[in-house]
């Protein structure tokens, strides 16, 4: 009996963690989104019983996010920013992870520490540092004008989508590199050697062996950074401040920040979570399929 429960028991902390820090908060958000508002203090009054849920707020949000709604554009803009930032992160992060995993040799540990090093500083502090660096008379403009890349200083902080996207890339890149590195580092060298022995070129080996085998790492890293990017609101706040570059997270922040409709903030969160669940579902399905194929082979 004791032995029967010993090993599954190791999963207990994880299960408790999941319940306390994910399921309970998520159900609370759901109960708020489908709840009511205190007419005096404007506080959300969650409805815990699903049979009594009030779908009015959620319907309103779905309409506002749908075609012709006043939140459609900000939702599409968020999708666009995250997609571009994700693509750029992969373009930058994959070669870095590949180099560290396969070519760095003795410097592997040092390079990994360097990748992680920015995370030792608070995200907001790093973004605020960029505000100074990107100022009209900041070091970035000074360098770019000195090297004649730019003829005159660029107003990076003037509400530009490019600045927001680059800031997202900068902020989340290390979280992509780490799972990618782990995935690439785990690839069995014998697979690559077999490919080369069978006549494949380096590029062909990369394309047909390394890349497919690192797909779980790519997806894992992509999910890891895309999820927080979708909910990000402080990055556009800090490096842009323009409504034209705001993201859906700014709307959630706005409605939770006071006023008589905190339920709308919760309802947007629920809709966003539903969308992200689809992405997460695709990731889990891919992992499941990869595992099954690996077992079959």
């Amino acid at each position: 009996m004791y032995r029967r429960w010993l090993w599954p028991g190791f999963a207990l902390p994880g299960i408790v963690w999941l319940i306390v820090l994910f399921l309970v908060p998520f159900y609370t958000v759901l109960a708020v989104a489908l709840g009511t508002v205190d007419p005096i203090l404007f506080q959300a009054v969650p409805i815990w019983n699903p049979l009594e849920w009030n779908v009015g707020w959620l319907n309103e949000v779905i309409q506002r996010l749908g075609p012709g709604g006043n939140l459609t554009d900000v939702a599409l803009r968020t999708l666009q920013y995250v997609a571009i930032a994700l693509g750029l992160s992969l373009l930058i992060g994959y070669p870095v992870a590949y180099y560290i995993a396969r070519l760095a040799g003795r410097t592997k540990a040092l390079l990994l520490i360097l990748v992680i090093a920015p995370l030792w500083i608070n995200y907001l502090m790093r973004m605020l540092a960029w505000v100074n660096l990107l100022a009209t008379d900041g070091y970035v403009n000074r360098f770019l004008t000195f090297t004649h890349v730019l003829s005159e200083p660029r107003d990076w902080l003037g509400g530009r989508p490019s600045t927001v996207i680059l800031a997202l890339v900068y902020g989340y890149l290390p979280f992509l590199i780490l799972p990618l590195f782990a995935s690439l580092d785990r690839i069995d060298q014998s697979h690559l050697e077999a490919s080369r022995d069978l006549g494949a070129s380096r590029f062909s080996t990369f394309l047909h062996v390394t890349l497919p085998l690192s797909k779980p790492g790519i997806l894992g890293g992509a999910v890891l950074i895309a999820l927080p990017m979708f909910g990000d609101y402080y990055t556009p706040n800090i490096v842009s401040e323009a409504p034209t570059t705001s993201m859906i997270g700014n709307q959630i922040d706005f409605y939770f920040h006071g006023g008589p409709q905190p339920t709308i903030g919760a309802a947007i969160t629920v809709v966003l979570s539903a969308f992200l669940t689809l992405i997460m579902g695709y990731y889990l399905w891919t992992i499941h399929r990869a595992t099954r194929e690996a077992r079959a082979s």
Partner: protein
Amino acid sequence: MTHHPKERNGGLNRRDFLLRSAMAASAVTGAGGLLAACSSSTTPEQEAATTVVGSTGEVEAELLGPGGLPLARPDKRVELPLWEDPIESGLEPETGGTFTVFNYPDYFYKKLLNEFGKEYGVKVQYTPFDNISSGIQRLASGAVEPDVMEMTPDNLDLAVAGQLIKPINLDYVPNLAKNVWPELVSPFYDVGSHYTVPYTCYATGIAWRNDHVSEDIAAMAQPWDIFWEAEAYAGKTALLSEERETIGMALLRKGHPDINTEDPALIDQAVADLKELYEICNVKIGDLQYQTIPEGRAYLNQAWSGDMIAAYIYYLPKGTPASVLSFWKAEKGQVPVQNDCFSICKTTKKPVLAHHFLNFMLDNGVSYENFVDFNGYQPPINEIDPPALIEEGIVPEHLANCVLTNDDFGPDSLQYMTLTQAGHALWQNGYSDFIAGGS
């Protein structure tokens, strides 16, 4: 031994308070009836104020705010009901432990707070909130237990109806009647000063760097139009990050002086006008104009009058002359004015000391030092003489319009005030539409 006011006889809980208010309101029409449930007296103005005239000029049913409280306007005075008795007079202030001030970040001089703590033998803790709405939410949720907090007139009804702040015994606050501008001793939103004492005052206008902005904004027929003509200042133009101020500005620009309107057509039009600014100047939103304007990170900004005084005192970089800062505000009756207040929180464990704090805050010397040595926002204190501020060089002459006087307040002034829940939602959704940024 002092009693915590919550332990006193005769107090009402929130349910009783609302029930009695509602019963009285149903028995007698209007504000007078509502107040009769809870308060010992009503003023003639209150008794007369049983209807309000909306932006369309039509007589509307009286609008009620949180908890069914009548909505105060500069020309409609309201005495708020007492949900419990104030503390008795003549009690000794509590000593020892911590005294918590709940306020906007960096909005009270730490040195003065420490002096207060030293005088009364307490450690003063300063707990900041992001904005007054979220501060009230945190107080209501029990996440914080401050002794005193910053309050604004447009949130006062909510705090009173929610029984989040306590009635004040003015015997402990003699500086209110002695030192404060007459208009704010017993202000229209809190007749009798049952729950608040004023802290600072300001007007909303336009701040700009005249070395970058070529237009003479003050000479324009409608100075607010400058934001709609700011193509040359794209990326350097910003509006306040406040839904009332932003939409209200667009209303004033089109000549609608009712900045507390709940007319959806007016709000929709104001939001549509604001959205034009995306294309014109890629407008930004934020509340750091006191820093971004003097530093040249912004050229043109909707701003509060105190911002440019703070900019001059603290944020102007060395080598940048004060003459580059400009501020415009409209004439009385067309300019939004506002005053911040302080209230005693229901969570206080030191109610007597909290009263002493309010009195300390309104001391001539303390309020002056807090103003000129720290936050730049003017307290409504009689002794602070606007010409003297300019003569002494505390405020440069060309920024004299940043200084307010008692005459800026009164029944014909404009002040953002509490809305009904539906009206508040209307403004909030309008602002949400604006900050969503369009396509």
